[in-house]
């Protein structure tokens, strides 16, 4: 059974169905969207259940010739890494859709269609095994997010969404040139036959043989790196992120942080590094330095933020720095740490944005200075918030700790100074997170909150439903990281073998 196509098509069918529903039936549209997102989620869980942990290589592959003139195929498949990303995507999507039920009342139809199309693109990126197909899904992600931020976003949304689009497009269009150049290099080397020129398996095997010329590797890697680094986002390409996060609606922020940033990291792991190992080694040190700068800079800037969402956004820059650091230190532990960090950042930051959304829903404000004493009136909310804050700060036993710790261990062997510098940041993280939480939750009820009176109701059941699965997964992955690490064993070996070539 073509499971992957099924997972890709489910949200698409949902979007088409919603397109023909009358706009007035907002509730029906909401439920339909949720139903299809849940269906895609169930399919992805079935995929996870059926996935064989042991063997390397891709499973559930499907391949259909698409544009034979250039050997372009509709080819999809998953390894342990993609499976995890697909499940993360489907999970966060239904949570985001559920979290949008109450806040989004304007043009619900367009909103839900955008979200489901967004899911199609995101899943597609994680399962595509043809570079051209990958690029198409990559760009498909862009449009719905542009609309979600631009239509349903905050006051400064037009600036934020245009910035988001332009940053992403500059990177991705250069990536297109690089993809075409790579495919052409492969085609030239294969007596002018386009067969396999866009096929990931064929290209990876060709790269493993060390056949791509060093000049091509350098240029193509730089183009791909730029596209992915903007998406991650790495310092100094991160400036679109705080704006986009601040202006996006809550669910948009959740997906942006939870999945969209992972697209960049996934691209680095799947394409940029294994296809161009020589270039990856050449640029490893500068990238490691940039990663550490991102980790430190993100943390320091977070401390001084006055807006809840902006604080979480900058903390993302810091947390994602661990991911890129883990990828480019080329060791088993750091690789697995990076992937674990991707997942746990998706869960934790997704949760934090949901929680910021909860308070924003009630107060229409996110200024930290105006808050205070929430614990007194919203005890459950404060408790849940506290849990996610601790998870984000890297409390042992929760998933955030495992990822960062593994990256630390993995990078220590290569660069002790770098590793130590990055681990010190965990102290900074605790500082800005706990300080923010303290200002929000403890002390006397602030003037501003008192003025709101009865509006400040505790977290409701729907909101808890969106947060509970995330909290559950954070605990499970924190206590039993082997659940993920087992899946990653084969991909780790493949990745390290691909990187080892150039050594």
């Amino acid at each position, binding site marked *: 059974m073509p499971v992957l196509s099924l997972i890709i098509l489910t949200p698409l069918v949902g979007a088409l169905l919603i397109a023909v529903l009358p706009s007035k039936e907002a509730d029906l549209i909401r439920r339909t969207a949720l139903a299809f997102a849940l269906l895609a989620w169930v399919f992805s869980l079935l995929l996870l259940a059926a996935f064989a942990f042991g063997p390397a290589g891709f499973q559930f592959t499907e391949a259909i010739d698409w544009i034979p003139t250039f050997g372009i195929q509709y080819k999809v498949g998953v390894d342990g890494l993609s499976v995890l990303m697909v499940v993360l995507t489907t999970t966060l999507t239904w949570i985001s859709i559920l979290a949008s039920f109450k806040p989004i009342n304007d043009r619900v139809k367009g909103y839900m269609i955008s979200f489901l199309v967004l899911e199609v693109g995101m899943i597609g990126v994680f399962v595509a095994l043809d570079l051209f197909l990958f690029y198409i899904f990559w760009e*498909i992600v862009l449009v719905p997010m542009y609309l979600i931020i631009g*239509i349903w976003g905050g006051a400064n949304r037009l600036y934020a969404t245009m910035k988001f689009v332009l940053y992403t497009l500059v990177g991705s*269009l250069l990536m297109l*040139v690089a993809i075409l150049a790579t495919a052409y290099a492969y085609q030239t080397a294969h007596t002018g036959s386009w067969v396999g020129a866009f096929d990931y398996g064929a290209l990876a095997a060709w790269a493993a043989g060390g056949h791509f010329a060093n000049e091509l590797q350098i240029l193509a890697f730089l183009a791909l790196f730029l596209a992915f680094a903007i998406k991650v986002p790495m310092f100094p390409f991160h400036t679109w992120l705080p704006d986009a996060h601040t202006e996006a609606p809550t669910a948009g922020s959740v997906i942006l942080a939870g999945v969209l940033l992972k697209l960049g990291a996934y691209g680095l792991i799947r394409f940029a590094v294994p296809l161009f190992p020589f270039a990856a080694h050449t640029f490893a040190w500068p990238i490691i330095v940039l990663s550490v700068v991102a980790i430190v800079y993100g943390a320091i800037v977070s401390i001084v933020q006055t807006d809840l969402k902006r604080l979480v956004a900058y903390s993302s820059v810091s947390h994602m720095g661990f991911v890129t650091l883990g990828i480019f230190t080329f060791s088993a532990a750091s690789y697995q740490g990076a992937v674990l960090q991707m997942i746990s950042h998706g869960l934790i930051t997704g949760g934090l944005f949901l929680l910021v959304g909860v308070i924003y829903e009630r107060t229409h404000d996110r200024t930290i200075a105006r808050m205070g004493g929430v614990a007194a009136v919203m005890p459950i909310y404060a408790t849940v918030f506290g849990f996610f804050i601790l998870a984000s700060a890297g409390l042992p036993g929760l998933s955030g700790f495992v990822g960062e710790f593994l990256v630390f261990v993995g990078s220590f062997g290569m660069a002790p100074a770098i590793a130590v510098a990055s681990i010190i940041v965990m102290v900074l993280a605790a500082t800005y997170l706990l300080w923010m939480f303290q200002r929000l939750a403890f002390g006397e009820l602030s003037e501003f909150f008192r003025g709101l009176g009865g509006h400040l109701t505790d977290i409701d059941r729907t909101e808890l439903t969106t947060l509970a699965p995330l909290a559950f997964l954070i605990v499970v992955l924190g206590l039993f990281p082997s659940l993920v690490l087992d899946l990653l064993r084969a991909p780790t070996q493949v990745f390290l073998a691909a990187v080892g070539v150039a050594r």
Partner: protein
Amino acid sequence: MNWSDLGTIAPVVAAVLVAAAILIVDMVLPGRRNAILVTALGGLGVVAVVLLAQAGHSAEAFGGAYSLDNLTVFLDLLFVAIAVLTLLFAVDYLEPRGLPIAEFAAVLVFAITGAMLISGSKDLLLLFVALELMVLPGYMLVGFARRDSYSTEGAIKYFLLGSFSSAILLFGLAYVWGITGTTRVDGVAAAVAKVVAGGPLSPGLALGLAFMTAGVAFKMAAVPFHYWTPDAYQGSPTPVTAYLSVGPKVGAFAIVLRLFAEALGPLKADWLPVVIVLAAATMTLGNLVAITQDNVKRMLAYSSIAHTGYILVGLAAYAGGQQSGLSAILFYGAAYTFMNMGAFAIVTALQRRPGVSSQISTFAGLGRRDPWLGVLMTIFLLSLTGIPPLAGFWAKAYVILAAVQAGGWLTALAVLAMVNAAAAAFYYLRVVTYMYMRDPIGDAEPNSPGMLFQVGLAVTCVATLIFGLFPAIVTAAASAANALHV
């Protein structure tokens, strides 16, 4: 001339007959709009059928001056499609303004006849006459709203610069004729091939090449020969602008294929640097100026200059040794035709009520006011930006692929083209921003275009959506390019 010649040029003859029939019907049944439309659309349908029947065949007429091959069929079908779409979109615009439909249709079909003749020209003189046959009706169309001073101004500018550039082109052709002693495309190719083998270009040939390049650059609106475009585009009745942005442009590229690729192909190493510079300047300047426009028609005019630049990248790739550059040009022309006409159609729809401007503020809140027009415009603009899986993306991808294959300087040109494409997103998406993210100004009345208009929108939209997804069109473009003797 014999009967088989007549059979070969049957599509062109049919087009002339359609134009004549429109005028006769208008004379016999004055003011009967439907009769005219049936004649025009039905006639163009017949022309299309005649063309389709010729697909795959190859024949020459008049001693090799005209050739009906896959390239001719591909381009002619495109021209017929352009005429049909222009007509479908024009009715809703012309009627409320009291402009005559019959004359519009007849002039339009004559213009298309010229374009169809270009695509099959294998003789420099025929090429020139065909070009004039295409552009002369164009001047009339630009000035069609004769009581509108902007329309007249645009027509005069277009006419003056157009005639000037035709003269320059003719001058260049004369040089080539003088040096090679023939006007036949194949003969010229053979003669210049000898020149290339014999060493550097003679001054005469270089001069001829320069004049021809300048003349054709005028026609395709390449920088720095683009100055007529914005005024002609903005002043024209909007359906005419839609036509101008694709018809004469594809026609100009038909000349490029016959003249530069086929006749002057042996000299491609000499004109390659010029094309690279033209392409780089055209897309960059077109985009930069488009960013600053507040009038959507004018913005689309400048953006069409930018697209000329992207297409020129395909020509440069061909000159750089990649045959695939030619099919990329053809694919781009076809994809651009549908998405750009679609975008202009939406502008036309908004301007159904006389007096509505094409300022960007007209689009404010369109997504809420008129969801269908909003969605369609978004699709066209995203396609023009080059977002997959829409037609415009594939067009860019094939051009870039050809350029990357050619390598060297052309890779740099490809990178420049992509940076430009990213910049273009700014002004295309600005319209989307207005449509969905701003509130309408004043109370615009609901807008329901006529049935013909909706058919036209459906065609352009479906083409924009599926164009690249079906490899058959790529194959058709490739086989059309293969028909060239290069």
